[in-house]
């Protein structure tokens, strides 16, 4: 099959692919930053003392985790207009990605905080450290180490998830493959190039995740 693989077309469309790659990159970064904020807020609500806040956060997290991202994207894409809101496709997509990843990040952060052993906190109490001091010097530094590797994993997922925005005609990487298919009917050239470019992103992030796993996680050892 590689014999009739048309590299000339790929070259011709390279500017488009690079634009798609850049957009995928930007969409992912923006969504990740927003999702981090949403996630931290949702986690704080999840661990809060107020029942109502906890309930709201649980409903949000569980309903996101139990439904497909594509359905969430369509929910906003077809739903916002019925509310009379005209939101462009790109922003709609970013809202969906933000809320989706936010729910997963909330759980990641919560797992990080609860992973700090009770004995650590008791040791802090015993030397007279206040609640904020214990959080700042003992719980958060250790929780952060535990949180970073899965957060990088979530970043990888987010890059892949952003591909679904092609289905609401946002021009990102996957959309380029679709254009090549519809304009020239060259799906092989289009989608294989797209796949290779995604793999490049993946192979940049994967070692980072592995490194953070080794470097940042401190465990109590007995």
């Amino acid at each position, binding site marked *: 099959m590689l014999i009739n693989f048309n590299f000339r077309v790929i070259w011709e469309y390279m500017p488009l692919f690079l634009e798609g790659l850049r957009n995928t990159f930007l969409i992912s970064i923006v969504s990740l930053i927003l999702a981090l904020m949403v996630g931290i807020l949702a986690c704080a609500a999840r661990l809060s003392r107020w029942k109502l806040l906890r309930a709201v956060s649980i409903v949000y997290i569980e309903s996101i985790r139990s439904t497909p991202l594509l*359905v969430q994207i369509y929910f906003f894409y*077809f739903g916002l207009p*019925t509310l009379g809101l005209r939101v462009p496709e790109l922003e709609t997509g970013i809202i969906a990605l933000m809320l989706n990843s936010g729910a997963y990040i909330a759980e990641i952060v919560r797992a990080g905080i609860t992973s700090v052993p009770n004995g650590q906190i008791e040791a802090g109490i015993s030397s007279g450290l206040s609640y904020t001091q214990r959080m700042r010097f003992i719980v958060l530094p250790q929780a952060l180490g535990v949180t970073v590797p899965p957060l990088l994993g979530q970043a990888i997922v987010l890059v892949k998830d952003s591909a679904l925005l092609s289905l609401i005609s946002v021009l990102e990487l996957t959309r380029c493959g679709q254009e090549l298919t519809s304009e020239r009917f060259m*799906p092989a050239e289009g*989608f*294989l190039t797209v796949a290779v470019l995604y*793999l490049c992103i993946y192979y940049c992030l994967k070692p980072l995740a592995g490194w953070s796993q080794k470097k940042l996680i401190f465990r109590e050892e007995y």
Partner: protein
Amino acid sequence: MAFYASRIIQILPYFLKGLLMTIEVSGISLILSTVLGFVLGILRTADSKLITRSIGVYVDVMRGTPFVVQVFIVFFILPSWGLQLEPLPAAILALTAMTAAFICEVVSGGIKAVPKGQWEAAAASGLTRMQQLRLVILPQSMQTILPPLVGQYVLMIKDSSVVSVIGVTELTRVGWQTVVRIPEGLMVFTLVGILYFVICYPLIRLSNYLEHRLSLQTVKL
């Protein structure tokens, strides 16, 4: 609004048919990917570098590319290599190929988590390598494998929504077809979401429960 609500009740049977299709696609892929995933996962722990490396590359490719791209590749590109597939088999092939890669990682992780001494003890009692695996190692690793395995099933059911793009009339596609005719996006996709929730939420709880049970056991050790 009320008018649309009654129309949605009218077309509810279509949603249920869509739900059935979702269950069918995911169910078949679940079985196939579990079998393939276990085989790959066991091979992944083999001694041969060639085998483990090739499986590693396969897993990376599946994990490193979006599922929607994989679906397009199966549906649009395989035909030019002489493999023409209907939407349904294409969907099952794509779902199986991806999920098997994730299950492979779960299984090999579970096997590697069993202490080396267990292999040695089993070997010392004269079991063959296959027997060591089947009688001693796998039963122990099943406990660590099970919670993330159920988690993978949930991911797969959710990812099955993506095969709507190649025309499989499952739940998401039914929602899409409906919303084109009835412009009540919120209501339609809330309904679709609820139907997914009904399948996925119990599975997530199951996975959490299995994990909780596992953590209790490890504490006792």
